[in-house]
């Protein structure tokens, strides 16, 4: 009897791990041989290459790079490995090292430590990390000027708020998200000094319930535009906005999306009319950055040990306008501010201290 139950339980475990693995692995099958071509690979964090966010975007960049250079998916070409938990990062990176990829990306700030560790152990290999900085001579760090994009959506929010109350929902209170917050607040302040921005952090990127609760209290207190930088927590923000819109289609409430164009998330049908609560989105072009770095590395200019920041001039950041909720004059203002930032006339704050200094210059 004891044996039978042990077998049953271990079968359950085995089945579940296998299923998870089947869902994850992309396939390492195309047996490669060419050591003469340049090959690239990436390791996703737990989101996976179809997370509708930065992992997916990074994979799109790699795919494009592979296509443009006539590479095949798999060893010797371009490939990815998916991590199903934090403990997979180092293992997956090592696997790719052993498969002789010329450049290996770690996607997401969660992978910073793993990339550092593996890069130290394999000083001859080239690595890249997205969204954080790893100070190793064989690692190139890709970061984005999220504060600049956030500034621009802040301009949109500042010009379009009717109540002069705007909300910001952050995932975790970390320097990266603070960049979003500070840039956003600066953008609002620049065009509408009277507007007040309320800032809330959910404490995680997977807390849709907290996101919804925060949005509920924000909208109830008269806030009409919420910018979220909180991953899946933002689902809750969208769900609250859509429910309120459904109850009262005339109510002007908005969500500003993040990382990708979130217009599809904002669609809401009332009767036979379709509304969209997504005002705009701050899009991070991870694909552009990944592609660009691969190109540099292929040409022999791998920027090891350096940090490359992608911002507005490099097309690394974009303001999405799908849905047509932003009127022409506001778009024009966004464009003006964009030029000012590119020319360096405006320095967008990246943390709260710099924001205070920035705010002091505006009356």
């Amino acid at each position: 009897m004891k044996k039978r139950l042990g077998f049953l339980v271990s079968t359950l475990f085995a089945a579940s791990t296998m299923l998870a693995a089947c869902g994850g692995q992309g396939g390492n099958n195309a047996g490669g041989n060419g050591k003469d071509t340049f090959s690239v690979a990436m390791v996703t964090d737990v989101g996976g290459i179809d997370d509708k966010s930065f992992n997916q975007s990074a994979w799109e960049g790699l795919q494009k790079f592979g296509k443009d250079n006539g590479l095949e998916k798999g060893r010797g070409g371009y490939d990815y490995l998916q991590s199903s938990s934090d403990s997979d990062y180092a293992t997956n990176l090592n696997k790719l090292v052993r498969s002789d990829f010329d450049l290996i990306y770690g996607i997401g700030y969660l992978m910073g430590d793993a990339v550092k560790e593996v890069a130290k152990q394999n000083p001859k290999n080239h690595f890249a990390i997205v969204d954080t900085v790893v100070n190793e001579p064989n690692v190139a760090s890709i970061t984005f000027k999220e504060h600049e994009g956030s500034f621009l959506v802040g301009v949109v929010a500042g010009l379009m708020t009717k109540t002069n109350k705007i909300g910001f929902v952050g995932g975790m209170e970390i320097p990266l998200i603070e960049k979003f917050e500070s840039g956003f607040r600066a953008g609002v302040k620049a065009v509408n000094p009277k507007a007040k921005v309320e800032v809330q952090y959910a404490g995680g990127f997977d807390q849709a319930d907290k996101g919804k609760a925060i949005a509920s209290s924000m909208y109830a207190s008269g806030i009409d535009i919420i910018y979220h930088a909180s991953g899946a927590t933002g689902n809750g923000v969208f769900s609250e906005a859509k429910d309120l819109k459904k109850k009262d289609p005339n109510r002007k409430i908005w969500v500003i999306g993040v990382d990708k164009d979130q217009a599809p998330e904002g669609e809401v049908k009332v009767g036979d009319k379709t509304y969209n609560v997504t005002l705009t989105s701050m899009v991070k072009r991870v694909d552009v950055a990944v592609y660009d770095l691969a190109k540099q590395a292929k040409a022999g200019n791998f920027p090891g040990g350096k940090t490359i920041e992608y911002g507005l001039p490099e097309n690394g950041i974009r303001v999405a306008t799908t849905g047509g909720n932003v009127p022409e004059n506001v778009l024009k203002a966004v464009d003006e501010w964009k030029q000012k930032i590119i020319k360096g006339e405006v320095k967008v704050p990246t943390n709260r201290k710099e924001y205070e200094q920035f705010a002091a210059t505006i009356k």
Partner: protein
Amino acid sequence: MSVYDVLQTIIPTAIFFAAPLIFTALGGVFSERSGVVNIGLEGLMTIGAFVGIVFNLTFADRLGAWTPWLALVAAVIVGAVFSLLHAVASVTFRADQVVSGVAINFLALGLSLFLVKKMYGKGQTDQIQVGFDKMDVPVLSDIPIIGPLLFSNAYVPSYIAIALAFVSWYVIYKTPFGLRLRAVGEHPMAADTMGINVAKMRYIAVMISGALGGLGGAVYATIISRDFSHATISGQGFMALAAMIFGKWHPVGAMGAALFFGLAQSLSIVGQTIPLLKNVPTVYLLIAPYVLTILALAGFIGRAEAPKAAGTPYIKGKR
């Protein structure tokens, strides 16, 4: 902000936050009252959320406004069937109930993500278009003071959850079935001697917990996240478990605990605008539910006593 304004934001939030926890915690009460520990609530919620969303996406065009309700029914059925795994392992094969529950958690997440990838070719589903609408309860929402607090901007499943807590209390404490359920959980041998089929009772109880866990997950996904991905159910099942313990394995207590957890959550959000709470770091309010659960378990807040036979398989004829 006046006190009333604050209440008006806190209370509706607390209620919708609590609803999925109430369903799931009630499921836990049934299972543990019969003597089967159910760590797998998280997994059952995951399965429920998965079924709720997939059903909704598949049939929304044909079923219209009925979709979310029927999706809940589907989640209840699949949740009950899925929990059979736990019942078979822990009742028939007398496996360690905690290990089996953990296996349920792993299996549920792996299986549902695998199926999502197979069905939709991506890691998460699209957002559902037909959900439960916010509504003002007719007549009741016009009551001064209480109306806007308790009966406005609410979701119907929240009220069902609260009603179900009282139904569960009646079933467990006032019906012969409930008496047998409790007897099996407290002293299975005595119950067996009196002619109660222990295994059958436990099977039924675990399946009820699966049904309610699935319902909780589906309500969560339909109202809150609106899609299904690996992050949809992240810890809610364990919060429900905590609510059950904090509520001392009593249905109404579990409901109260779940509502209290919701209140703590929404207080932590609104707290920054209340003068008195402004200086309290939000982290204290966020951890309040867990700290209180530990205190309850440690015996500081009354005594939280589990059903005596919870966690031990019943072997006929063994003393």
